[in-house]
């Protein structure tokens, strides 16, 4: 039986009618009109569906939507301002950090979380992104992009 589940998505209140064990990923893409978060493997291996839930990085394919009740969810759609990309987005663009693009939203969310909470990955960027696979194996440029993102931020760019 479907349940009414409410949470905050990128600062806006949303309410979805969903089966409680439905992964949050599906609720975002199909019920909350936020298809920026990608489906990769559906079983927590690839990180394409990575979002930030209550300030913690999670795989949205492994979160039953019932557990998102009352939570604060942040996705790729919430990063940019009206006319300015988030520093991590801008850096991925400048550094060629995206190839086919499937891993990119999840990779960027992991990058954003890392810049907010570097203490959660004492091993730095490789550790912060270890749950995110790039099937094009474009890691070098992704790592370059993360360096660039730090530069953009310290120069006063957008990012929080």
């Amino acid at each position, binding site marked *: 039986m479907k349940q009414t589940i409410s949470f905050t998505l990128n600062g806006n209140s949303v309410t979805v009618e969903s089966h409680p064990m439905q992964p949050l990923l599906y609720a975002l893409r199909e019920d909350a009109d936020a298809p920026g978060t990608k489906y990769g493997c559906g*079983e927590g291996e690839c990180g394409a569906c990575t979002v930030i839930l209550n300030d913690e990085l999670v*795989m949205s394919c*492994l979160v*039953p939507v019932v557990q998102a009740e009352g939570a604060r969810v942040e996705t790729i759609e919430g990063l940019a301002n009206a006319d300015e990309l988030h520093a991590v987005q801008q850096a991925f663009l400048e550094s060629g950090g995206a190839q086919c693009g499937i891993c990119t939203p999840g990779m960027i969310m992991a990058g954003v979380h890392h810049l907010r909470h570097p203490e959660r990955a004492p091993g730095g960027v490789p550790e912060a992104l270890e749950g*995110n696979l790039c099937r094009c194996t474009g890691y070098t440029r992704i790592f370059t992009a993360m360096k660039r993102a730090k530069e953009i931020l310290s120069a006063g760019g957008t990012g929080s």
Partner: protein
Amino acid sequence: MKTNVAELQVCSPRSIDEALQQRRDIPGLTPIAGGTEVLVWLNDAKFAGKTYQSLHGLAKDWRYVRANKDGTLGIGALATYSDVRFHPVVKERYPLLVESARVTGALQIQNRGTPVGNIANGSPAADTVPSLLVYDAKLKLKSLRGERLVDLKDFFTGYRRNVMTSDELITEIVLPPPLFMPAQQHYRKVGTREAQAISKVVFAGARSAAGVRLAWGSLAPTTIRALKTEAALQNGADANAAWEILQREIAPIDDIRSTAEYRRKVARNILFEFLNKLANTL
């Protein structure tokens, strides 16, 4: 997702009493903490369960890591791998637990998954269970009938089978004060990659005058303590003699992740690595 989620029932208790009542009254209820295992099964339609109990409403009661005055440590049922990994007292006193939480999945998994779930799930490849076995962990099992304390080493009775009754929940892992110095401990996970791997073999061990602990994953139908090998080492057996005994205590198999032969070889190498490391630090 191969499972039709419309067919699944979920209870979300708001209090411990309600959770325990549901455990008593609803047959076949599978409890979930973060869901990082159960949703993988559902995705693959591997698990027949239709009724779930999502414990997320009990975070205020059960999401904690608590250093007690008597020197013990309590890890609540909803404490995540990250909660454990970054806890200052765990870092100081139980380094194997930090290492094993660190190599369980990736950060995203560590933020949702729980050591208690790792135990309840009963996978023989569980990464944190060998560490908890080394530290002589006990489990608090609670039902409306009361509470009991079970040694983790006596908890598993077979492949994904354990001593819990259908009305119980694991509410806490209790660790006694540590017996070993950090330099007397060793953790080793061998998987396909450094991150996001499931173990082919996983080991946690410790040795001091206070005793010997050898705990293994992926070498038997459950995570195990190699009690006979421990006893032999305590009585002065050398590495070769210990391996002779350990070989008879393990039962590795061929499966999708590795072969029995490879696992046996890795088990031997890890045993020698462990004994060498300790010989060099004494």
